[in-house]
């Protein structure tokens, strides 16, 4: 998407193709316009108002935008979100690709791994969040009980220095299975005959992965990267359950800050401004990522 096409796949052109394009896109565009773009335009309008509980709006011009630019928590959350994003792209997508390729390589237990890797995704953030809170808990947590059993001092896991990492671990872990399934799907495109040829020519497993597999699923990895970037910009529930952004906003990300602005402080206008800010960041980052990765279309002969 945005990244995935190359000119060469275009089909032969016909006169009535414009009609075809129109009718094939129409349902999706209608759904998006009504349920996504109309609301976001309304939100954009709201960013020019001070409104509590979404009632009695008071026009304040660019007030919310000025507040956004001078709000130290926004910048802290943006910084944290970028750290999160880099970790998500490296570990979430990376592990997803690695595990998918591994499962593709093995013969026994494929279905077992395909099923079990999916488990964390189906569990609600509330239940996984509770699990991690019970792990990290200072006085009664599992991690500290282990440390005590080994005669170490208990650790305050969720302090300002470590909280961000401690919420990143479960969030990233939970969605590795998502990228795993996407890459697994992408791997179905690669015919086994290609691997057989490679085997006959004496390629090692490692060469087989780097020379055949990775280049052929390159486009799909890019899709994963875009999803990881946009996903991180929206990250919210697990962080919210474990630390709610604290202590001292040290694990605050844009998603949690937006949530607390809207649902706790009830500042709809300012919350909408943060939403617009997130979207602008997302468009910029994905565009830059595209430029940076470049377009490497690989064909194998």
């Amino acid at each position: 998407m945005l990244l995935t096409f190359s000119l060469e796949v275009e089909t032969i052109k016909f006169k009535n193709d414009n009609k075809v394009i129109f009718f094939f896109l129409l349902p999706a565009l209608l759904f998006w316009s009504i349920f996504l773009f109309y609301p976001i335009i309304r939100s954009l309008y709201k960013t020019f108002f001070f409104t509590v509980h979404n009632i009695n709006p008071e026009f304040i011009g660019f007030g919310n935008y000025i507040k956004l630019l001078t709000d130290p928590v926004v910048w802290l959350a943006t910084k944290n979100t970028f750290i999160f994003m880099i970790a998500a792209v490296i570990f979430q997508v990376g592990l997803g690709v690695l595990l998918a390729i591994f499962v593709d390589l093995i013969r026994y237990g494929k279905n077992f791994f395909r099923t079990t890797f999916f488990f964390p995704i189906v569990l609600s953030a509330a239940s996984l969040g509770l699990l991690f809170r019970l792990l990290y808990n200072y006085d009664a947590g599992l991690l500290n009980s282990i440390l005590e059993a080994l005669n170490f001092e208990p650790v305050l896991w969720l302090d300002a220095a470590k909280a961000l990492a401690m919420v990143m671990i479960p969030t990233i872990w939970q969605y590795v299975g998502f990228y795993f399934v996407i890459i697994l799907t992408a791997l179905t495109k690669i015919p086994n005959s290609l691997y057989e040829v490679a085997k006959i020519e004496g390629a090692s497993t490692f060469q087989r992965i780097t020379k055949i597999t990775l280049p052929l699923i390159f486009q799909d990895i890019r899709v994963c990267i875009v999803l990881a970037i946009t996903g991180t910009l929206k990250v919210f529930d697990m962080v919210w359950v474990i630390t709610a952004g604290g202590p001292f906003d040290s694990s605050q990300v844009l998603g949690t800050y937006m949530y607390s602005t809207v649902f706790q402080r009830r500042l709809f206008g300012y919350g909408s401004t943060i939403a617009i800010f997130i979207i602008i960041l997302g468009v910029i980052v994905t565009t830059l990522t595209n430029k940076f990765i470049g377009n490497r279309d690989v064909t194998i002969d």
Partner: protein
Amino acid sequence: MKANFSPKKILNNIQDYFIEISMTKFVIYMVLIAWASTTILPLLWVANNSFRTTTQIVDAPFSLPDSFDLANYINASERINILNSYKNSLIMSGTTVLLVLLFGGMAGYVMARFKFRFQNFINKMIVVALMIPAFVTVVPVYEIFIKMGIVNTYLALILPHTAGNLVFATMMLSAYMSSVSTEIEEAALLDGANRWQIFTRIFVPISRPAFATVGIFTFLWSYNDLFSALVFVPNKSVQPITVLLNQVKSQYGTDLGLQATAVIVTVIPVLLVYIILQKHIIKGLTQGAVKG
């Protein structure tokens, strides 16, 4: 026992097997097993808690149950009509999946195989759509539904879920379709097939793994969306099963055992859907059809 049984043959087989599992394979299996244990244990933990009381969970969060006490399950079945909620969930999420596969497939096909004027603009819009938070859409959409009078009907969840999931579906399906070889398509065109026929007879079957994946995640996201369910269908008789998760907590205290039970009760259908649909994520459909 068969007549041609020979110990030597079996020994040879075992030996071959171990040679086949080389060092590389061993490392691969170790990594996969290590990861699987991180994904299995939490689910087991939740399943385990579903047989325990809050007191037991609070006192010893990581112990096994004394007995398989079904009290939480009985309690859950008294809270809401589980079968009716399953039915509601399946109708709403099932319809959403079918609509998303149909419309997402069509849009994905066009985005993958054609070049046209607003394509870049639509691509940018898709990235924007991926990031629109639920709180932005919920109020305006709710107002529309109130005007249309469809609050408390299945459509009130199907429509927004279809719109939301179409974004990922279009991305995913167009990425997959873009690697289908042009030769097959051209041959079909020369045979006089129209675009719709090419889409349904060539692209849909070839992209079956991608459709399965999109189906899995559309089902999952639509099914798990508690926020929309609480807003758009407040009537208990129309609510999906995920609402059970809202029913286990209050300021009077969270029943941790019941919460675990609610998670297990809601998770089972999703796992079944996954197990059924993931069978379609297989090779072979595209042999020779993908541009290599």
